[in-house]
C-alpha cells in the first residue's frame, strides 16, 4: 500500500508538567481500515488522538493525514479530514439543539446553506436519529447523545473517524446498537480507542497496543487477542 490515511512517524509528546505521554510512536492506518487502539489508562491513547487532529501539537515526529503533513498551514484542512469523537458527548454538544451542533462543522467550513442542510440530514440519518434535529441535546439519554456526537463529525464528511472510548458508560442495549451503527459505516476509515475487547473483536480487523507511551504490539486482532502473555503484560483481558 502506497497511500495511507494516517501516517505517524517517531512521534513523541511531553506534557508541560514533564510527563512523557508518547515515546517514539510509529503507526499507520490504510483507507477503509478499522483499527483499534488499546492499552491501560494513561497509555497515551487520548494524547495520540488529540495529536492526530492537531488539538495538541508537538515538534518531535511527523504526522501525515491523507498525504498532508500536519503544519500550521494544513491544520484546518486536517481538522476537516479527521473527525474526532470525544469520550464525553457533553463536551461535544455545546449548542442547545441537535441541529445546530450537527451543523457546526459544515458552517465553520463555510459550505453553502443547502449543502449544510443536506449534510445534517445525511449525518443524522446515518446514526439513525433523523427525527431528532429539533430536540434539546441536554435532555437526551447517554446513548442518544453519543449518536449525535458521531453525527456532528460525520456531517463534516471526514476521511477518518477517530473515536475515544465510544462504548464507555452505555447500557448493554445502547452499546449493542452503537456497535451496529459503527459496523454499518462500512466505507469509513476508523481509529477506535477502547477498553471494550468485545467491541474490538466485532469491529476491528487490526489492533495496536499502547503502553506507557510506546507502541508494544500491532497486528491482526485475532492474533493479538490469542496472545495471553502479551495481554497480561499490558493489563488487558481477552474478551
Amino acid at each position: 500500500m502506497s497511500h495511507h490515511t494516517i501516517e505517524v512517524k517517531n512521534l513523541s509528546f511531553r506534557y508541560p508538567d514533564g510527563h512523557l505521554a508518547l515515546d517514539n510512536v510509529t503507526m499507520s492506518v490504510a483507507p477503509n481500515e478499522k483499527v483499534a487502539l488499546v492499552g491501560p489508562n494513561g497509555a497515551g491513547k487520548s494524547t495520540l488522538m488529540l495529536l492526530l487532529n492537531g488539538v495538541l501539537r508537538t515538534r518531535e515526529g511527523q504526522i501525515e493525514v491523507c498525504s498532508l503533513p500536519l503544519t500550521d498551514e494544513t491544520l484546518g484542512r486536517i481538522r476537516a479530514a479527521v473527525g474526532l469523537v470525544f469520550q464525553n458527548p457533553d463536551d461535544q454538544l455545546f449548542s442547545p439543539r441537535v441541529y445546530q451542533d450537527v451543523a457546526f462543522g459544515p458552517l465553520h467550513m463555510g459550505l453553502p446553506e443547502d449543502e449544510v442542510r443536506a449534510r445534517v440530514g445525511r449525518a443524522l440519518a446515518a446514526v439513525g436519529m433523523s427525527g431528532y434535529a429539533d430536540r434539546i441535546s441536554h435532555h437526551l439519554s447517554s446513548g442518544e447523545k453519543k449518536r449525535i456526537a458521531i453525527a456532528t463529525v460525520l456531517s463534516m464528511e471526514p476521511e477518518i473517524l477517530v473515536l475515544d472510548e465510544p462504548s464507555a458508560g452505555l447500557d448493554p442495549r445502547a452499546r449493542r446498537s452503537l456497535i451496529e451503527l459503527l459496523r454499518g459505516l462500512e466505507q469509513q476509515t476508523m481509529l477506535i480507542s477502547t477498553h471494550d475487547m468485545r467491541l474490538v473483536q466485532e469491529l476491528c480487523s487490526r489492533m495496536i497496543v499502547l503502553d506507557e507511551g510506546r507502541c508494544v504490539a500491532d497486528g491482526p486482532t485475532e492474533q493479538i487477542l490469542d496472545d495471553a502473555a502479551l495481554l497480561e503484560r499490558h493489563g488487558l483481558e481477552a474478551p
Partner: protein
Amino acid sequence: MTLSLSLQERYQAGDSPLHHLDPRVKVVMTLLLILGVVLTPEGAWPAYPLLWAVIGGLAAVGGLGAVRVARAGSVALPFALAAVTLLFTVPGQPIASIFGLPITDAGLTRFLSIMIRSWLAVQAALVLAMSTHFTDLLWALGSLRVPGTLVAIITFMYRYLFTLKDEAARLLRARAARSGILPGYRSGGPLFWRARVAGGMIGNLFLRSYERSERVYAAMLARGYSGQMRMLTPPQLTWGAIWWGAVPVAALLLVEMLAFLVWT
C-alpha cells in the same frame, strides 16, 4: 492548549522558615509591604532597590528565587498602557520626544515610579502566593475576620475551580477539533454565529455547574450538613511568628522614613 498551561498554581511546596510562618502573619505582612510600596513617594529612587531587597530577600529566604519572582512580577506590565500617556501630559521640562510629542521630566518620573511600585507590589503578592498553600491562605483570612460565609464560598470555589477549568478546556478542544477548513471556502462562519457558539458553550458549562451544585448539596446534606461550615480551632499565634514578620515590616518602615524625609 495554552489555556490549561496559563493557569498553573503558583504555590511551591517547601520547608523554609517562610513556608512555616503562620499564614496570618504572612497575610498581614504582605498587605503592609504592598501598602508601603504603593505609598512610596514618586521619584524617591534610592528607596526602590531597597524595597526590592526586602521583598527579594523574603523570596530568597523562602527558596523561591528572588530573580524568578522579579521576572514573574512582570505580569502587570501590559497595564502600563494605562499610564504611558503621563509621559507627555504631566507638566514639566521637555527632555525628549517621540512622534513629535515631548516627554517631560516630571512625566517620566511619575510613569517610572508607577511602574516600579506596581512591579514591587506584584512581587510581594507573588511571594505570599508561592509560599502559602491556598487552603492555608483561606484559613488565615477566616481567622483575620473575613466573613466565614465568604471564606467557605471561596473554599468551595477553589475545590471546583480546576474541575470546571478542565471542563471548559474540553469544550474548547471539542470546538477546535471540528473547526475544519476546506480549500476554496471561506471558513470560520459569521462573527455573530461564532459569538453565539461561545455563548452556547458557556450556557452548557453553566447547566453542568448548576446541576453539579445540586448533587454536591445533596451529598453534603447526606453527610449531616446544616448550613454551618465548621473549622478547626486555630493554633495559637506565637510571638516568634509575629517577630519574624515584624522584621521585613520594620525594614520597610525605615526605607519609607528615609524616602519621605531624605529622598524627596
